[in-house]
């Protein structure tokens, strides 16, 4: 019998909250986590706003001595993973045979970019002999997975996905497939990004991707609105504990929902721009539905990629119409990036978490800052206020630079 994969633990630290409960409360209240950048002096930047996690203290999760050796993206993933494992009631001693069947997949767009920047600064200013011996371990984008496997005794598959803004959607999909093919029973799956540094802000600004609405930080991320002008960068992490269904039932775990579909496609078009018409995105969504054995009419909520860039929101809207037909106009579609900003490699995991909570609570969080309709974006974007609506099945989309398209489908567990 085919192995099924359920979600039994959740964790997150993001600009709206430092745990799942506070995040979800803020998201359903339609709050914005965006503000002026505080982590460095951004006065010389074109874009001077971001979603930062106010008051994140890594030492709540990590011994001081260890914490200081890590990049912020590692710290964020460690924190969300600690929460998720605690929520799932899972912990392994080093000699526990079950630990051999537990693994981790983490997605990050870039990895330790702050450390990368600082390391290069040090090398240029003080010479190669002053570069920290920790530089490489802080930079590499797999290390968040490595670290949690060390800390939490996860001795099964240990890997990472690096597909830009689709990275942690791939992480969750890949982790589910690892369980389905019986290579593990439990997988820590998620993503993290800590991109609030000069180099990343400058680079994304120059690629014309960021909102320059510096005068109105909380109004800057406005997916699907006619006045949108780019995405707002956000930092954060989210972790889902995926578990083989029988394994979860046998230990009496709380089951939030099931991951039922995973679809991927490539735009094969341009390094940053989506293929006009959204054909690539549509194929990812259709593949996910096919994988789930569901029709588009079965989907009760779409958590959109919805970055607030001119190009994404139009093409994603077109893609939804391609897949959903007339049903596109009745399915609620929202972009929580309107509130959190764009967590880049962490986005897919956080938005999967949103889908799971929407299923749990029957609440669809809104797209905030939606004031002026764009004729090319004419779906129901759940404007500005959360909506109570039964959600049995939810889809989330993640699209990354490079043309990586990923869709995931989650369903209530039966």
């Amino acid at each position: 019998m085919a192995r099924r994969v359920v979600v039994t633990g959740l964790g997150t630290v993001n600009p709206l909250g430092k745990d799942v409960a506070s995040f979800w409360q803020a998201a359903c209240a339609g709050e914005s986590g965006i503000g002026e950048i505080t982590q460095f002096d951004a006065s010389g930047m074109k874009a001077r706003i971001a979603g930062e996690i106010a008051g994140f203290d890594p030492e709540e999760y990590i011994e001081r001595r260890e914490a200081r050796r890590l990049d912020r993206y590692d710290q964020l993933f460690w924190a969300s993973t600690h929460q998720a494992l605690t929520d799932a009631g899972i912990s392994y001693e080093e000699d526990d045979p079950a630990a051999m069947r537990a693994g981790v997949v983490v997605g990050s767009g870039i990895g330790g970019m702050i450390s990368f920047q600082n390391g290069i600064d040090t090398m240029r200013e003080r010479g190669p002999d002053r570069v920290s011996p920790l530089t490489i371990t802080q930079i590499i984008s797999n290390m968040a997975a490595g670290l949690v496997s060390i800390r939490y005794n996860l001795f099964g598959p240990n890997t990472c996905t690096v597909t830009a803004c689709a990275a942690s959607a791939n992480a969750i999909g890949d982790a589910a497939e690892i369980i389905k093919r019986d290579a593990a029973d439990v997988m820590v799956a998620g993503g993290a990004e800590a991109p609030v540094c000069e180099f990343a802000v400058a680079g994304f600004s120059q690629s014309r991707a960021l909102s320059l609405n510096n005068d109105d930080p909380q109004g800057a991320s406005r997916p699907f609105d006619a006045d949108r002008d780019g995405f707002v960068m956000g930092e954060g992490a989210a972790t889902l504990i995926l578990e083989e269904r029988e394994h979860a039932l046998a230990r009496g775990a709380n089951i939030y929902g099931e991951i039922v579909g995973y679809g991927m496609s490539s735009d094969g078009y341009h390094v940053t721009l989506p293929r006009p018409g959204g054909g690539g995105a549509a194929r990812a969504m259709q593949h996910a539905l096919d994988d789930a054995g569901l029709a588009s009419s079965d989907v009760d909520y779409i958590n959109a990629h919805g970055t607030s860039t001119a190009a994404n929101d139009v093409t994603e809207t077109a893609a939804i119409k391609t897949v959903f037909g007339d049903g596109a106009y009745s399915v609620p579609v929202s972009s929580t990036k309107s509130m959190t900003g764009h967590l880049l490699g962490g986005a897919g995991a956080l938005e999967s978490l949103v889908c799971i909570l929407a299923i749990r609570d029957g609440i669809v969080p809104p797209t905030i800052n939606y004031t002026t309709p764009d004729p090319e974006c004419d779906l129901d974007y759940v404007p500005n206020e959360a909506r109570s609506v039964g959600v049995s099945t939810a889809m989330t989309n993640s699209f990354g630079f490079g043309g990586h398209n990923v869709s995931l489908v989650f369903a209530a567990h039966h």
Partner: protein
Amino acid sequence: MDRAEVEAKMTELLVDELGLDRDKITMSATFEEDLEVDSLGVVELLMALEDNFGVAIPDEEAEAIGTVGQAVDVVMEKLGG
């Protein structure tokens, strides 16, 4: 800088820059066993000594440093004390 000053400064940098537990730092404490400083931490330690004391410690001399006290010895020697 006299030995007491070097010892005090050494303790501070081990706490502040390497994140070591102040209570475990004694002059006879070994970096590897007692303070659990790994191979990457040893490189950090040497860089911290060089930066904080304004000395240069070649690798062959660094290999002789096993305890906190021996690190103080090397620094004292470099400082001409």
